[in-house]
């Protein structure tokens, strides 16, 4: 189960798009997973042939658990089939996280059973994980219907003997194990069922981690938008509604280009060091009216034209509203942009989305008093803010970044 964001701890597999024996290529959508960000289409990160699907639709599994096996064609020294590493592109910390102390037998068994060693507490010497620990943590194989009934009845899956293939627990096994009296009513768990609450929890996890770990510093600059506003007005006056642009797209492109000049803002902080990224994938925050916000990645925004970015953003907004994003869109963002101008606020000071290191905020475009050629008049302007990670950059670098964004917005025709 891939980590689809720093805030994700588990996901429910809703459907498979592939079958055992099917060849897949990097980037193919292999399954859909229900998360607190809606349904995410999961892309595979390696090409190969699917050899086993370990999780059935409807099952909820923790991040890191093996959901399928893929034969990548690499020469494996011996069976079993090499296990694909769980992909966690959003959080490199998870990929190269600290090494877990475990016996060789425990490692082998954990691999066979698809148990994540990091989730276990060891009972061996120096708290190392033993084979017995792995066995105890093993999740019994169970059909989705049986799982639901067992959950409703509050049954311990470890105590049920499975009669299906490979010891899989079936519906009949659960019904046999269920007490004859009516099951006690399970207390309502709105937190698990209510998607809004799940979204709030996800935001809470990511933002609390951010405020706990990232020493933020904040800068702001008021950027004149006279030229950008005029250019946009003229452009839109000549275009049919489908080809018009929004100011937000100019902001997006300006930030993406500024990341080329100031690479300290674009990348991830993990394992006590900054990993700058060559690819520039700004996450553009899209607010959900029912509560919550999702910043899907706009891939390679620095290389796209304004019209292309506009089309992309329009499509992303639609899919965010319908809860239909792809895994790379929720995990790849290298910096976040939030534009709260539509809500009327003048400036937004954001919280960095870990493991990113910067967030740029745009407020409302409003007329401001402006001195020009010795005369005071009004000009449209926007307050641009930067929240940046002080472990990676200093105020001077941040100032250079904001100044670059400001300069770029003075030449909208070049964006």
């Amino acid at each position, binding site marked *: 189960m891939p980590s689809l964001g720093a805030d994700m701890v588990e996901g429910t597999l809703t459907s498979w798009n592939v079958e055992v024996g099917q060849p897949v290529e990097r980037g193919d959508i292999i399954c859909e997973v229900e998360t607190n960000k809606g349904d995410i289409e999961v892309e595979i990160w390696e090409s190969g042939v699917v050899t086993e699907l370990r999780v059935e639709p409807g099952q909820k599994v923790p991040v890191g658990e093996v959901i399928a096996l893929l034969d990548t064609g690499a020469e494996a020294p011996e069976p079993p089939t090499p296990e694909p590493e769980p992909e966690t592109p959003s959080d490199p910390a998870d990929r190269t996280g600290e090494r877990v102390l475990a016996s060789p037998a425990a490692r082998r068994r954990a691999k066979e059973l698809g148990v994540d060693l990091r989730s276990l507490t060891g009972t061996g010497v120096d708290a190392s994980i033993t084979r017995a620990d792995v066995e105890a943590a093993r999740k019994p194989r169970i059909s989705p219907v049986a799982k639901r009934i067992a959950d409703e009845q509050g049954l311990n899956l470890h105590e049920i003997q499975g009669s299906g293939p490979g010891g899989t627990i079936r519906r009949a096994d659960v019904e046999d194990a269920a007490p004859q009296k009516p099951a006690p009513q399970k207390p309502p768990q709105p937190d698990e069922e209510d998607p809004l609450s799940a979204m709030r929890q996800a935001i809470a996890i990511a933002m609390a981690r951010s405020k706990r770990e990232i020493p933020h510093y904040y800068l702001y600059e008021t950027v004149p938008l006279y030229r950008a506003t005029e250019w946009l007005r003229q452009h839109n006056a000549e275009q049919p509604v489908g080809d018009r642009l929004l100011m*937000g797209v100019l902001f997006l492109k300006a930030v993406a280009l500024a990341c080329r000049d100031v690479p300290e803002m674009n990348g991830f902080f993990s394992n006590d060091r900054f990993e700058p990224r060559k690819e520039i994938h700004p996450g553009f925050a899209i607010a959900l009216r029912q509560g919550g916000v999702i910043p899907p990645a706009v891939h390679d925004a620095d290389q796209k034209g304004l019209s292309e970015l506009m089309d992309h953003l329009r499509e992303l*907004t639609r899919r965010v509203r319908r809860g239909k994003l792809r895994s790379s869109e929720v995990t790849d963002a290298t910096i976040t942009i939030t534009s709260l101008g539509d809500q009327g606020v003048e400036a937004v000071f954001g919280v960095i989305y870990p493991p990113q290191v910067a967030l740029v905020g745009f407020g409302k475009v409003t007329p401001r008093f402006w001195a020009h050629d010795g005369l005071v008049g009004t000009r449209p302007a926007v307050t641009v803010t930067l929240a940046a990670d002080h472990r990676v950059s200093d105020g001077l670098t941040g100032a250079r970044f904001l100044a670059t964004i400001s300069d770029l917005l003075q030449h909208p025709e070049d964006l």
Partner: protein
Amino acid sequence: MKSKETRALIVDIIADIAPEIDLTDTTGDEHLQETFGLDSMDFLSILEEIAAKTGVDIPESDYEEVVTLQGMTQYVAKRAP
């Protein structure tokens, strides 16, 4: 195009683009963006759908006239064949 028909069409378009907005009890006078939280991308998508379905392309200079459901209905009904 008849006003009632136009209004129903616009309500359908808004429901498709912003399914979480409930327009059943609306008077039609509310500011669509301020009252219902539509952002500029939603607003543009609505205008795009209106253009596709009725042929009425509302220019940016006329946006002020279509900020409410009622205003939008009148604007489109008057121009749609």
